[in-house]
């Protein structure tokens, strides 16, 4: 029994390239960043990706659908898929955001503590283990994910529709991690 609860620090993100300057942005970039006269504060992350507004807009829409669409897989378990991918890819920033969201939604800081302190081996409770094992393999090397791992998800009560949601949440972090971890780095919130 631990007396102090495990907490993941909130982090900020700083890009390696110069982000788009709102003052000199093109119409398309402003629209992508949703800049209006009353909303000129845009995060460095959005301004960095707004260099290519077309892909930014399409990906953001897909990302939001995968992480927040109604019905299907419990939102906490989508966050767990995101966290596992981020742990595999060592995206410190994404991991911190989605570890915190997972705890907010599930209240299970012991899972996050296990991942942060000891890694993805576990042991975790059975359904969590099945999610971690599958998302880990898919994130590391897709061809190493197995039928048995998917069967384990089914055996722990996950419907096929829910597994489709889980696949997408892990996969979209194969995407997000490859942006956030390669284009910048996490910084303490205080240093913003």
């Amino acid at each position, binding site marked *: 029994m631990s007396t102090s609860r495990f907490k993941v620090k909130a982090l900020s993100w700083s890009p*390696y*390239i*110069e982000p788009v300057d709102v003052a000199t942005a093109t119409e*398309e970039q402003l629209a992508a960043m949703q800049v209006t006269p009353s909303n000129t504060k845009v995060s460095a992350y959005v301004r*960095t*990706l707004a*260099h*290519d507004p*077309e*892909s*930014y*807009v*399409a*990906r953001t*829409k*897909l990302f939001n*659908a*995968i992480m927040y*669409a109604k019905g*299907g897989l419990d939102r906490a378990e989508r966050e767990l898929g995101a966290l596992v991918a981020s742990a*595999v*890819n*060592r*995206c410190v920033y994404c991991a911190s955001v989605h570890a915190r969201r997972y705890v907010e939604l599930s209240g299970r800081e012991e899972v996050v503590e296990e991942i942060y302190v000891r890694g993805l081996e576990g042991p975790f409770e059975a359904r969590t283990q099945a999610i971690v094992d599958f998302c880990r393999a*898919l*994130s590391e*090397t*897709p*061809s190493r*994910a*197995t*039928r048995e*791992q*998917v*069967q384990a998800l*089914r055996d722990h009560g996950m419907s*096929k*529709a829910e*597994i*489709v*949601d*889980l*696949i*997408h949440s*892990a*996969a*979209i972090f*194969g*995407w*997000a*991690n*490859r*942006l956030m*971890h*390669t*284009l910048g*780095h996490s910084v303490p919130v205080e240093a913003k």
Partner: protein
Amino acid sequence: MGTSDLDQMDILSGLKPGSELYAIRRERPEFVEGTELCRETVLSPHHGFGLGHALRAALASRMARFIGREDLAAVYDLMLDEAGSDPDLAAIASGAEPAAVDAFTGAIIRHADLVTKTPRDNSRTDIERLEKAGLTNPQIIALSELIAFVNYEARVLAGLSLLEQVE
């Protein structure tokens, strides 16, 4: 329903029209259509920032190969042929070591390989190498989105293929 209702993700995942998983995918039209829309923005964008459609297809094929999806690579090979291939682009797609390509293309290939295989090891110096090779900020972002998309797509395919084999 004819086979024309199948999109690339269905075909490469081994889904048939009328199969259970085909129907389940359609319950999430925002995933199905969203993925295809994203594919357009990274493979055949309106604004390519000087990274041509053929080069993008060649890189996608190369990355799909490294991820172990020959079937996906073949789709991008076809896209490359239709875009107009040449020996250098074909070599990129094949996964061969870049030979006599210019520094700009060489840096792009190196980056695509690293971010596909070992993204965890990427650091600031990798972005600086792209800048030194002459890539602009929009090109760096466009390249990053292309690399990340193919990695996403291959993972969705792998997951759906496995799910189709399970009761």
